[in-house]
């Protein structure tokens, strides 16, 4: 009886220029990419890359904060399946992700409305 109770999530804010190096470290450590999330906070993008170490259920999130015009390198060279996450944040949030291995050119979601919704929607509030 009694199970592992999850350790607290770890949030690590890093400069954007070391993102790829940190992602490689995570991959070498056997961690699984769980999700990539874009948020628009205070006129900047917060990009959160979460990794799970499944032997301990530890979730670590690498966070970069960038200006809307800043280009972000795709991590699909390191983690190929990240293309869904990256296409989503590129299309819906307008994050300038460069070099996605499978680039849907803002047509991952087949919706009629013009994308991205952010930051246009925020400015309209």
């Amino acid at each position, binding site marked *: *009886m*009694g*199970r*592992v*109770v*999850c350790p607290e*999530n770890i949030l690590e804010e890093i400069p954007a220029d070391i993102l790829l190096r940190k992602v490689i470290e995570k991959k070498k450590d*056997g961690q*699984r*990419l*769980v*999700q990539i*999330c874009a*948020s628009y*906070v205070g006129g900047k993008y917060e990009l*959160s890359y*979460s990794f*799970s170490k*499944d032997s301990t*259920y530890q*979730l670590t*999130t690498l966070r970069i904060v960038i200006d809307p015009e800043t280009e972000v390198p795709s991590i699909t060279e390191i*983690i*190929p*399946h990240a*293309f*869904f996450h990256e296409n989503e944040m590129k299309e819906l949030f307008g994050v300038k992700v460069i070099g996605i291995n*499978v680039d*849907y050119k803002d*047509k*991952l*979601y*087949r*919706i009629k409305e013009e994308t991205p*919704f952010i930051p246009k*929607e925020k400015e309209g*509030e």
Partner: protein
Amino acid sequence: MAKKRSVIPFGPQHPVLPEPIHLDLMVEDEKVIKAIPSIGFIHRGLESLVRKKDYNEMVYVAERTCGICSFMHGMGYCESVEHIMGVEVPVRARYLRTVWCEMSRIHSHLLWLGLLADGFGFESLFYQCWRIRERILDMVELTTGGRLISSVNKVGGVIRDIEPDMQTAILHAVKEIEKELRVVQKTFMNDYSVESRLKGVGVLTKKEVLELGCTGPFARASGANFDMRVRGYGAYADLDFDPIISPVGDSYARCDVRIQEIFQSIDLIRQALGQLPDGDLSVPVKGNPDGEYFMRVEQPRGEAVYYVRASGKKNLDRLRIRTPTFANLPGLCKTLEGADYADIPLLILTIDPCISCTER
């Protein structure tokens, strides 16, 4: 003779697809070389509603992300907000949530088993699975008032109790389900026609599922040993269970793992009801959330991640739901590579796709 290459569109409308997804299949004669998925036919923009709705009202939006995973979407959202606000949910509420979670898993897996049987043309098996499923849906209706959208979660606990007579009815229902599922299990696992469609088809290794970020029964059927319930949310920390895994990695193993998980859910319901503590159903919640949290729960299709960010206002700044199907689509594409065209519908089913969840 040179092999002929062509691109065949699959979906968004297809008999095996309850929900729309499109795949461009590059085939060489009858073999698939590459599959490129497209989604977005039912994107509703649910996440963006957080900026307009009160965080308490968002529970109902989160529950409507998907009909099948409805309860767990509501619970995952509530637990995220509760964590940010430091709300200690009553123990009884945590147990009740766990019981409803496992009832959801049973009806989802039985739904999938029926669809799989329908996919390989075994109509009577399809009927049997869905007939058994009715029993658990009746229990969901008895305890929550709804058969799919239960709306019993709230930030701070739950709004309905499972009374002693309901507990008796649930225990009787799961006993019947267990008995009937054993019969169905024999057909799924021993019938030669089922074996011929599933064994050795769509194999993914443990290394591949981990590299592709797969999750849930789809990953566990290839030997990946993780199940978010082990994290101990709800009442899972008090219950005795181990993730069900198979080292084989084919479609047959995915079927086996899900059947075993139904038996496991029955056991977890018995354990939870057997030690259900007395107490309140919820605690009052005051103020507004301020902070952020990543919550992970094990839905029937695998790990779902709820990211909630708030800044002390009535509405949240951001809600992001990373659903299990979203994580399993790259694995599906890999599974399709090298497959016979005739196996494509079944292989798509074996990830148990939920497109409503995926597109939100």
